[in-house]
C-alpha cells in the first residue's frame, strides 16, 4: 500500500500552498482547493481501508503493515525517531473517521465561513490539522506520535484563536495550548522513562508479546510503584490532557471560542480522542500495569459523571456539547480501563467497545456540532435563551439534530446505542459498581441532550431580528450525510474489524444491560420532555430547590477558578515575580556592586593624583625623611 504516503503528503502540501499563496487566491478557489484535496485523501483512505480489511487474516489475526518507516533523527544506537506509516485495525479505522469528519467539515465550512476574513488561512490551518492528525494515528513509534501530538496541539491553538481580534478567543487558545502542554510534559517524561528501560520507541516492540516491556522495566521502583506504572501513568497524563479528562479538562469548554466547524472536527470528533487512541495503541502495555488501568477507570468515571452534571445546567449550547464530549470521551476511557485481558470474549471487550464508541461518537458528535453551527448561523447567538421553537425554521437541522440526540442517548437502532451498550457490558463485566455508575451517567446524558434539544427547537420562541432560515446546501448536505451514517453505523460488525488482539469477535447484545440502559434513557428523555418541551416554570422551581448544586454546577464546580488561582496567584505572583525581583535586585545588584565599589574606591584615592606639584613634593619630602630616619635607626 505504497500510495498511503499520499494521505500524509497531500494535506501537508495543501497547507503549504494555502499558507504561502492563500492571499493570492480567491476565497472560493481556496475553499474548493482544500475540499478537493481532502476528497482525494478521503477516497485514498477508503481504498486503504477496503484493501486492508480485505486482506486475509494471518493465523486468525489482522497483521500490522508498515509500508514506510525511515529514520528521521537518531539519538543513540538504539533510540531513533522514525517517521513512517503503521497500518493496523485501529489506525485504519481512525483514517476513516478523520477523513470523513474532516471532509464534512471542509464542505460545511464553505457555507459557514463564507465571506469571513482569513478564509484562506482557515483552510490552511484545517489542512495542517488534518495532516497532523493523520500523522498521529499512523505513527509507527511513540515519538512520532509525540511529534504529531504537538502539531495537532498547535493547529488546535491556531484554530481556536482564529478570531484573533477577540480577546476571549485569544485567551482560550492560550489556555488550551498551555494546559495540554503541561499534560504533554507528563507524556514526554513518560516516553523518556519508557524508552530508557525498554530502549525502543517503536510500538511493535513495546507491545510485542512475551512481555518485552515488563521484563525490561521489572525491578525498578520509585516511591512504591514500579517504574512501569509511573511511565504509563505519565503517558496517560498526556492522553488525559488532550482528551480533556478531569482535572485537565478546563481548556475544552473554552476552546468553543473557535469557529463551530473547528469545534466539530477538532474538539469533538478527532483530536480530543487522541488520548483514547494513545491508550488503545499501548493497550497491551497498559494491561501489564493493572494499577494504571484502575487509575484510568477512576479518572474516566469521575470525568464522565462530572461533565454530565455540568452539562445539565450550561446555557451556551456549544458548552453543553463540549461537556457532553468530555463525558463521552470519558466513557471510552472507562471502557479501556475496565479491560482485564487481551481476549475480546473474556475481559477484553472494553477495547472493542471503546473503539466502536470512538467511531460512532465521532460521527454523531460532529453532526451535533455542525447542527449547532447551523443554529448559531441562523440566530447569531450561542445562548439557549435566544433560541426555542426553531423546528419550524430549520427543518433539516432539526431532524438531523434529533437523530444525533437519540444516538447519544443510546436509543436503538441508532449507532450510539450499540457502542454504548458494549461499554456498559464491559463495565458490568468488570464489576457491578462500574456498570451502575456508567448506566447512571448514560441516563444523565440522555437528560441533558434532550434538555438541549428541546431548548433549541421547542419551548418558548425567542424574539429574532429577522426570521431564522435554513442554511445553504453546503451546510445541510454534510448534516444529512452524517445523520445517515449515524443511523446505520451501529449495524457495522465492528468486532470483525477491530478487537484487542486482532481476532474476530461477534458483537452480541446483552439483553439485561441493553434493556436497563434503554429504559433509563427513555425515562430521562421523558423527564426532559416533561420539564422542557413546553414553556413552564418547572425548571426554575428545580433550580430554586437545589440552589447550591445548581450554582456549583453552573460554575463548573469552580475548577477554572482553581486553575486561575494556581497560575496567577502561585506561579506568577509567588514564583515568577520573586525570581525576577531577585534577579534585578540581588544578582544584578551584586554585579553592579562590584562596579560601584570600584568606582567609590577610585573616587576616594583620586585625591592623591591631584596634579599639584607642590603636594607631590610635600609627600616626597616627608617620605624621604621617613626613610632617612628609618635608615638611621636601623643602620646606626
Amino acid at each position, binding site marked *: 500500500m505504497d500510495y498511503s504516503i499520499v494521505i500524509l503528503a497531500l494535506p501537508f502540501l495543501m497547507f503549504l500552498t494555502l499558507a504561502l499563496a492563500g492571499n493570492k487566491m480567491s476565497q472560493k478557489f481556496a475553499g474548493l482547493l482544500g475540499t478537493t484535496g481532502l476528497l482525494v485523501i478521503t477516497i485514498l483512505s477508503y481504498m486503504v481501508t477496503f484493501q486492508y480489511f480485505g486482506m486475509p487474516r494471518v493465523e486468525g489475526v489482522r497483521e500490522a503493515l508498515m509500508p514506510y518507516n525511515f529514520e528521521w533523527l537518531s539519538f543513540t544506537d538504539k533510540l531513533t525517531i522514525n517517521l513512517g506509516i503503521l497500518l493496523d485495525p485501529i489506525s485504519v479505522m481512525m483514517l476513516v473517521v478523520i477523513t470523513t469528519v474532516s471532509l464534512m467539515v471542509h464542505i460545511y465550512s464553505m457555507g459557514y465561513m463564507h465571506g469571513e476574513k482569513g478564509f484562506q488561512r482557515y483552510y490552511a490551518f484545517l489542512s495542517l490539522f488534518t495532516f497532523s492528525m493523520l500523522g498521529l494515528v499512523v505513527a509507527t513509534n511513540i515519538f512520532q506520535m509525540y511529534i504529531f501530538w504537538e502539531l495537532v496541539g498547535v493547529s488546535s491553538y491556531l484554530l481556536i484563536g482564529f478570531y484573533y481580534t477577540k480577546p476571549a478567543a485569544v485567551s482560550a487558545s492560550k489556555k488550551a495550548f*498551555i494546559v495540554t502542554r503541561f499534560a504533554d510534559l507528563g507524556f514526554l517524561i513518560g516516553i523518556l522513562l519508557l524508552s530508557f528501560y525498554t530502549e525502543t520507541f517503536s510500538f511493535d516492540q513495546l507491545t510485542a508479546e512475551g512481555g518485552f516491556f515488563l521484563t525490561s522495566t521489572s525491578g525498578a521502583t520509585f516511591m512504591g510503584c514500579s517504574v512501569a506504572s509511573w511511565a504509563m501513568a505519565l503517558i496517560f497524563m498526556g492522553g488525559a490532557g488532550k482528551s480533556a479528562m478531569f482535572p485537565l479538562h478546563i481548556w475544552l469548554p473554552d476552546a468553543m471560542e473557535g469557529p463551530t466547524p473547528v469545534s466539530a472536527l477538532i474538539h469533538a470528533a478527532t483530536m480530543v480522542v487522541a488520548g483514547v487512541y494513545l491508550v488503545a495503541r499501548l493497550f497491551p502495555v497498559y494491561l501489564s500495569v493493572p494499577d494504571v488501568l484502575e487509575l484510568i477507570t477512576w479518572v474516566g468515571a469521575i470525568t464522565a459523571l462530572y461533565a454530565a452534571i455540568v452539562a445539565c445546567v450550561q446555557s451556551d449550547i456549544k458548552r453543553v456539547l463540549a461537556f457532553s464530549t468530555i463525558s463521552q470521551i470519558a466513557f471510552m476511557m472507562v471502557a479501556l480501563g475496565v479491560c482485564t485481558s487481551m481476549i475480546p470474549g473474556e475481559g477484553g471487550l472494553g477495547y472493542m467497545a471503546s473503539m466502536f464508541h470512538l467511531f460512532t461518537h465521532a460521527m454523531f458528535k460532529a453532526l451535533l456540532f455542525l447542527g449547532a453551527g447551523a443554529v448559531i448561523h441562523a440566530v447569531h447567538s450561542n445562548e439557549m435563551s435566544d433560541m426555542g421553537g426553531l423546528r419550524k425554521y430549520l427543518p433539516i437541522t432539526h431532524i438531523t439534530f434529533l437523530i444525533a440526540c437519540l444516538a447519544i442517548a443510546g436509543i436503538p437502532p441508532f449507532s450510539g446505542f450499540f457502542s454504548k451498550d458494549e461499554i456498559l457490558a464491559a463495565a458490568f463485566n468488570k464489576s457491578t459498581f462500574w456498570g451502575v455508575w456508567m448506566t447512571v451517567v448514560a441516563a444523565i446524558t440522555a437528560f441533558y441532550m434532550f434538555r438541549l434539544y428541546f431548548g433549541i427547537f421547542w419551548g418558548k420562541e425567542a424574539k429574532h431580528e429577522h426570521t431564522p432560515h435554513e442554511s445553504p446546501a453546503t451546510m445541510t448536505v454534510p448534516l444529512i450525510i452524517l445523520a445517515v451514517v449515524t443511523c446505520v453505523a451501529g449495524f457495522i460488525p465492528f468486532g470483525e474489524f477491530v478487537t484487542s488482539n486482532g481476532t474476530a469477535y461477534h458483537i452480541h447484545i446483552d439483553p439485561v444491560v441493553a434493556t436497563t440502559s434503554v429504559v433509563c434513557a427513555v425515562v430521562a428523555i421523558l423527564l426532559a420532555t416533561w420539564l422542557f418541551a413546553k414553556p413552564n416554570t418547572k425548571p426554575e422551581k428545580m433550580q430554586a430547590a437545589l440552589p447550591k448544586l445548581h450554582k456549583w454546577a453552573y460554575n463548573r464546580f469552580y475548577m477554572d477558578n482553581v486553575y486561575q488561582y494556581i497560575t496567577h496567584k502561585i506561579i506568577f505572583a509567588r514564583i515568577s515575580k520573586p525570581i525576577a525581583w531577585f534577579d534585578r535586585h540581588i544578582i544584578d545588584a551584586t554585579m553592579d556592586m562590584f562596579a560601584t565599589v570600584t568606582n567609590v574606591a577610585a573616587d576616594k584615592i583620586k585625591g592623591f593624583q591631584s596634579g599639584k606639584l607642590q603636594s607631590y613634593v610635600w609627600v616626597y619630602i616627608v617620605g624621604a625623611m621617613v626613610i632617612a630616619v628609618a635608615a638611621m635607626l636601623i643602620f646606626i
Partner: protein
Amino acid sequence: MSILSIFVVIPILMMGGLFLSKSMTQIRTVATVGSALQLIASIVLVVLFCGERAAGNTAEMLFMADHVWFEPLNIHYAVGVDGVSVAMILLSAIIVFAGVFASWKINPLPKEFFLWLILLSIGVYGFFISIDLFTMFMFYEVALIPMYLLIGIWGSGKKYYSAMKLTLMLMGGSALLMLGILGIYFNSSVDGNLTMNILEIAKNNAIPESMQNILFPLTFVGFGVLGAMFPFHTWSPDGHASAPTAVSMLHAGVLMKLGGYGCFRVAMYLMPYATVELSWIFLILTGISVFYGAYSACVQTDLKYINAYSSVSHCGLVLFALLMWNTTAMTGAIMQMLSHGLMTALFFALIGMIYGRTHTRDIREMGGLMKIMPFLSVCYVIAGLASLGLPGLSGFVAEMTVFVGAFQWDDTFRRVFTILACTSIVITAVYILRVVGKILYGPVQDEHHATLTDAVWYEKFSTITLIIAVAGIGMLPLWVSDLLRDSISVISERILQYI
C-alpha cells in the same frame, strides 16, 4: 592557504572595501557581497567536510594548517575544523548575512557600523577555526571589544551603562580565562615542550589532576560568562535591550555560542578529569539557569528583556546538556546552540523591526499588530513556536535530543535536574504565548499604530533567510546530528573514561 583562512580573509577584504567606499550604496554592496560570499564559503565548507568524512577521513580535525606565529612561547596560527566548528561557522555566516540586511538603514555612521560589525565577525570566525589556545583567545577578544562600541554608539536606552556593564563582565570572564589558558599552557606537557595547540595538549594529557581542578572552573566560568550562566548572566538582559538590532542578533545568535563552544572545546576536552569531578557544581548552576530564565521571562514587559531571559534559559540548557557528557546530550547541546542562535536572531530581528515602527518595546502598549503588520507578526509567531519547541522547527529537535541524552543517566541527581529542565518547556510556552497574545492578537491597542507599514523587502529577506534555516534543521535534522556526532563522540568518550 588553507580553505579555513578564507573565513578570516574575506572579512578583512570587506573591511578594506568598506574603508574605501563613499556612499551608502557602496557600503551596502560591500557588506552584502562579502557576507554572501562568506555564506557560500561556509556551505562549501560543510559540503567539503561531509565529503571528506564520507571518503573515510577520520582525522579529528580536517583542513588543518599551521604557521608559527611567536616562536618563544610556541604560539601558532593553527586552524582546523571538526563537525562542531563547521556547524558553528555555518550558523555565524547565516546570522551575519541576515544581520547585514537587518541593518540596511542603520544610522548614523553606517560605514563605521559595518566596519565594527565585520571586525566582530572576524573574531567569531577566527575563534571557531582556531585550534591554538592563544590564537583562539585573541580572536575571542577581537569579537568582544567591538561590542562595546556597537552598543555604546548605535544602541538605545541606557546604552552607555549597558555597554560598559557587558564589556566589563565579559572582560572579567576573559581575565579568568586568560589565567586558565596560561595554566593549561604551563602544564601542557611533561617533557618541557610546552604547547598551545589543543590537539597536542589533549594528546599529551599531561595536566595534573590537582591543576585540572583549579583550571577547569576558571575556564568554564570564563566561557560560561559569555554563555550566560547563572549567576553571571545579568549583562545579557541589559546588553540585549540596548543593542541595535543586528548586534543583538549577532550577540545572542553567535557570540553567546562562543561561550558554549569554549566550554566544550577547551574546558571539557582538555580537562576531562576535572570535568567528571566538578560537573555537579555547574550542573546545579546551569540547571538553575534553565528554569530561572524561563520564570523570569514570564513577568517581563520589555520584548527584548523577555528574549534575553529566554536566552538565559536556552543557553543554560546548552551548558546543562554539555555537562551530561554522553554523545547524545552533547549533540543535543550543539544542536540547541544552532537552533537557539537562529531563532533568537530571528526574534531580535523581528523585535528590532517592530520597535523601529512602534517606537516602543513595552508589550503593554502594543496590541493587534497581526492586523497591521501581518508579515512580521506571522514571522514572530513562527519564531515563538520554534522557541517553545514545535516539531518541524529547530527547537524541538534540539530539546528532545538533550532530554533523551540527559535521561540516559539513572542517578537521582541528574534525573531531578533533567525533569526540572523538562518543565521549562511548559514555562516557555507560557511566556511565548503571553507575548504573542498581548502584542499580536486582540484589538489594536494604540490607534497611532494602525497606520504603520509591514516589512519591506530587505527585512523580509533577513527574516526569511532565518526561517528557512530554522525549518531546515527542524524538518531534516538527521544531517545535522550526523555532522556533529562523530566529532562529539571523541570528546564524550574521552570524558566518560574518567568516570
